[in-house]
């Protein structure tokens, strides 16, 4: 059923129940996101897509559109909230872009540019975290994990459907874990997919790196905003 809603004052027609995120992007309104993957079940973990729905803050990926909905995306308060969320991620982990292999094709970095982050308003924490080298094909850089859970939900063992990645601990002690035995059974295509799915540089493929020269990296060819608006989610 087609319904009508308003995004930033603009009348928009959409199919009822479509995620607000998709509707906004299809109508040229960019909303940054770090955990949402189009066509996959919503995770709602990163909250970077926060917008105001009927004056209340909600994550755009979690909201199915209904008739008469009034959405504010580029409203000053919620725009600053999204920026603050991205800044908190940069302060919580150790996001050393100059030394990171994912730089230039990192969603977090690209979204940082889109929200106009120059510096984090939060204190940089420099929490020491152990890397995990156990798997033959994958290196886990825990410093950079933002706990989006994309890998936890969308990367699974092809035979059994078991999860390969998981999160242990709670709160500040949360840690991304890898089942090395299952990870060793991953095909090279599956490893590439997992690396690309990770919105930061936590899942790193061993034995390769720095393949694209500066200036020719993913988000330098086409920004994350242009990609999202064009429906290009690769």
């Amino acid at each position: 059923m087609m319904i009508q809603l308003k995004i930033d004052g603009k009348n928009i027609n959409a199919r009822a129940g479509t995620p607000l995120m998709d509707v906004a992007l299809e109508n040229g309104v960019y909303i940054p996101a770090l955990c949402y993957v189009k066509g996959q079940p919503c995770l709602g973990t990163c909250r970077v897509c926060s917008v105001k729905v009927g004056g209340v803050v909600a994550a755009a990926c979690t909201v199915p559109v209904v008739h008469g909905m009034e959405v504010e995306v580029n409203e000053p308060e919620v725009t600053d909230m999204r920026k603050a969320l991205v800044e908190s991620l940069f302060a919580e982990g150790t996001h050393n872009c100059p030394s990171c292999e994912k730089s230039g094709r990192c969603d977090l970095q690209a979204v940082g540019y889109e929200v106009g982050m120059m510096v984090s308003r939060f204190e940089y924490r420099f929490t020491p975290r152990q890397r995990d080298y156990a798997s033959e094909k994958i290196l886990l850089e825990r410093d950079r994990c933002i706990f989006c859970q994309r890998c936890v939900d969308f990367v699974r063992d092809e035979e059994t459907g078991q999860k390969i990645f998981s999160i242990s601990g709670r709160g500040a002690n949360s840690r991304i874990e890898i089942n090395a035995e299952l990870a060793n059974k991953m095909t090279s295509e599956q490893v590439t997919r997992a690396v690309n799915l990770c919105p930061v540089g936590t899942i790193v493929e061993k034995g390769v790196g720095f393949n694209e020269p500066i200036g020719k990296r993913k988000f330098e060819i086409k920004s994350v905003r242009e990609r999202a608006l064009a429906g290009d989610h690769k």
Partner: protein
Amino acid sequence: MSNHSVKQVNSAVNEIYSHDLPRTPVDAEFLASQEGKIKVSMIALVGCWGCTLSFLDMDERILNLLDKVTILRSSLTDVKRIPDRCVVGFVEGGVASEENIETLEHYRENCDILISVGACAVWGGVPSMRNLLPLSECLEEAYINSPTAVSGVIPIIPNHPDLTKVTTKVYPCHEVVKMDYFIPGCPPDGDAIFKVLDDLVNGRPVDLPTSINRYD
């Protein structure tokens, strides 16, 4: 530019700084030509000078700016203190020693606008990788257990009183003094530094567009 007079020196510790030494008077005609120009300078704390090279990457655009701007200090002129109050002060590098703190505080007191340039000044950058380890472990690795230690010599961690004390962690500049603007990047492009300086010189609000903002 003022001529510094020789400061009262504590002869007991035989301590004298280059910025306290008398300076050759600057040519009066040159001084007159600099009258009314916006004073700009740049200092380097703990970093690699890459941001100074990016400053130079403004290339011939600096020449046009020089009608309105005069550069009192850069990392290429190794004066320890800026000779005059500045309107715009760029800082590259983070804070990793007592000397860095003194230099940055003096700079804050003597600049109207302070700008963090590059990853080290903005959040600590590469030097802050040592924040993940205790300082003692870093010093031991560098001086005691170093693979390049000279054999047959008892290794020590340098501790001469003239050496500045290293801080336990590396800090971004804005955690030590108030910073007004930030230009991320390792190093930022000359374009980014030019954009900010050009905005300030022409009285526009400082705006670093997404297209030239980068973190690496």
